């Protein structure tokens, strides 16, 4: 027992111990600062990267394509250093252009002339008034005209689309759970 006490006393009184203590505290502080700085850098770089990605998804930041470097730049974009292929980011602005272009192409493919020719090729013939038979179909709908968007009347959105977990605080959640539990309890005790 005395041996242990002596060792403890010697340890406590050792001169290098105080120096080590100081150094450890200093290093701990340094580590703490480095951690905070690291987290800060990580968060800000992530925010900057995301911000840049958002910007590139919105518009082409360098405005135009170089005619000479199209092939090269596409390859560069598609193939990363690791060899994996990444999809090229097309800004929303250009996607809108492509969508409009595809809509027009689709309309051309289904235009009156094209459809008429295709129908004839497939052996269809235009109906004649004397070959048409009209029948009454109860509750059938008359062909409706185009309705491409909702009318301007107020539209109620479903408030349950966004989970309440994303909106309520911890205290709100606790009080909500308590209210639910008490209601369940009341229901159980009632005959």
């Amino acid at each position, binding site marked *: 027992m005395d041996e242990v006490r002596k060792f403890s006393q010697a340890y406590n009184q050792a001169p290098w111990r105080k120096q080590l203590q100081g150094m450890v505290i200093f290093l701990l502080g340094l580590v703490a600062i480095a951690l905070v700085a690291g987290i800060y850098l990580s968060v800000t770089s992530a925010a900057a990267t995301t911000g840049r990605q958002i910007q590139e998804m919105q518009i082409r*930041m360098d*405005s135009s*394509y*170089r005619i*000479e470097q199209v092939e090269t730049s596409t390859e560069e974009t598609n193939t990363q250093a690791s060899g994996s292929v990444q999809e090229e980011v097309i800004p929303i602005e250009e996607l809108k252009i492509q969508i409009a272009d595809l809509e027009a192409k689709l309309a051309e493919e289904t235009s009156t*002339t094209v459809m008429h020719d295709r129908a004839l090729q497939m052996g269809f013939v235009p109906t004649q008034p004397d070959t048409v038979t009209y029948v009454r179909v109860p509750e059938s709908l008359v062909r409706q005209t185009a309705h491409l968007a909702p009318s301007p009347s107020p539209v109620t959105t479903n408030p349950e689309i966004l989970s309440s977990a994303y909106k309520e605080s911890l205290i709100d959640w606790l009080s909500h759970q308590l209210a639910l539990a008490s209601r369940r309890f009341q229901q159980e005790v009632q005959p």
Partner: protein
Amino acid sequence: MKKELHWRYSALAIFFSTIAFLIIVQIVRIQLSPSAEEFRKQASNYKHSLHTYYPKRGDIYDRFGRLLAGNQQTYELAVNLYLVKSPETIANVVSRVLSDHVGYNNSEYYDRVFRIASSSPISGPAYIPVANYVTEAELSKLKEAAQSYVTMPVKKGKNVIQPSMQGLVFQPRLQRVYPEGELASPVLGFVNFDGVGVYGVEEKFNDLLAGKSQLSWVSVDPYEAGTLPQIPDGADIILTLDREVQAAVERILDEALVSSGSEAGTVVVMNPETGEILAMASTPRMNLNKFWEYDNILNSTVPFNRAVGKDYEPGSVFKVLTMASALDSGTVTPDTGFVDTGQIEIGGILINNWNFGAWGPQTMLGCMQHSLNVCLAWVAKQMGNERFYDYMQRFDIGHLTGIDIAGEVPGRLKRPGDNDWYEADLGTNAFGQGVAVTPVQMLMAISAVANNGKMVPPHILQSLVNNGRQFTPTHPIVGEPISAETAHTLTDLLATSLEGESSDALVPGYRVAGKTGTAEIATPSGYTSSVTNASFVGWGPVDDPKIMVYVWLEKPTVSPWGSVVASPVFRDVFKEVARLTNLPPDDVRHNLSGQ
């Protein structure tokens, strides 16, 4: 030993602390120095980039949502002056590839591109467009050429410029496209190279269809992402036109022009209950995707859309309005008798029938059936100036209908009190001479007869889609120039009239009402009966009119008479429209409604 070490440690600590302190002081000093503001200003120059937003021009659809006018991807070609190495190569290749492109197929184009590519970026903008609406195929050719210069062996030597297309850049852009080509071209109009709607719906609704391009500074700071200006696209427009009906009507009109030898023609199909235009065909038509050929197809004397842009003396179709006025005012009844002696004198001039014959005792049915000018002039005379022109005012003759298509003309109706009105005009106006109207004006006026006395506004706009909402305007009736009873009486009279003469306008299975018109065309030497405007206006089924058709053939050569050349066109159009709109024949309809 301990003290010595302690001193050294202290010295090191002081040294490093001093350095750290000095660094902090320097940081603060730089931040607060007068030059700092200058540096901040310089930095702010690179914080934003200039970006032009081009909103999509609104689409145009037919009544069932089929695209009539949309947008396709083309490219804007430009030079980035900071990157240009060989202006000559760029000018050479661009002018060669775009040699077939309208607007760039001229000898000056090479010089223009060369001048732009050779200019200095210091004195102006670095990005300068050299071509617009470049197609995918043209761009591919340019890319191939550019690639060939990249792989070309490097030339060595002083003052040798390596051919290169570096500096040529492109951006995707939208250009108006009409998937149906010629279909409904007089109604749609087109969008010119400046992005402005010309003629038709494109012009009428240009402000709504065209969003406004906007130049704005975009922050390159990634922390400011998501703050881009929201430029709304142009509004989409849904027309009352039915693509299938339009195509069928255009086909029938084209066939009629050939079979009648007419110079030009117009056919308009309208729902007389609502005023919705289902089809509007007129000649000439043009492929709207080649709008630059406009000058070759239409000269200054030819209107883009005859249905709204050209007025003419309609002839006997106008008698519908004269008779409607007379019946409504109580001047005559269907059984009122009239002895046709072959001529009548009004205002000092003698008015004759179309065949210069005397038709003897007639009722009003006979007058309309045989289209007797003398009888109708007498009817107008019985009404008197004031009453006749009051009714014409109620029918809105001589005024714009307000149809939502650009280029409408008002026509002309001279009235008592006008400098150029004479007493004789009452007689000639009664049978549609000396008065100028457009087909849509006639449709609007006569819609009162087909629609229980209520006159509907002809219109082409069904709905508007803007900011994600669809707006459907209401179109209240324009007026009630005649009573419902008069409308029914006249409709029945005209239907009986067609049936009585076994008109070519009769449609098997449907009871229709209508009137032919043959108007002599005024020439510098006076009216000539050999050159006419042949017309027909008709509607049906008479017990519940859903289809109203106006036919106008200009200068037919096979026969000058509307009853010969225009009536069959009405019949064919009505039959086709009834089929395409699922309108059953009268007996079937009555049977179905009785079930």
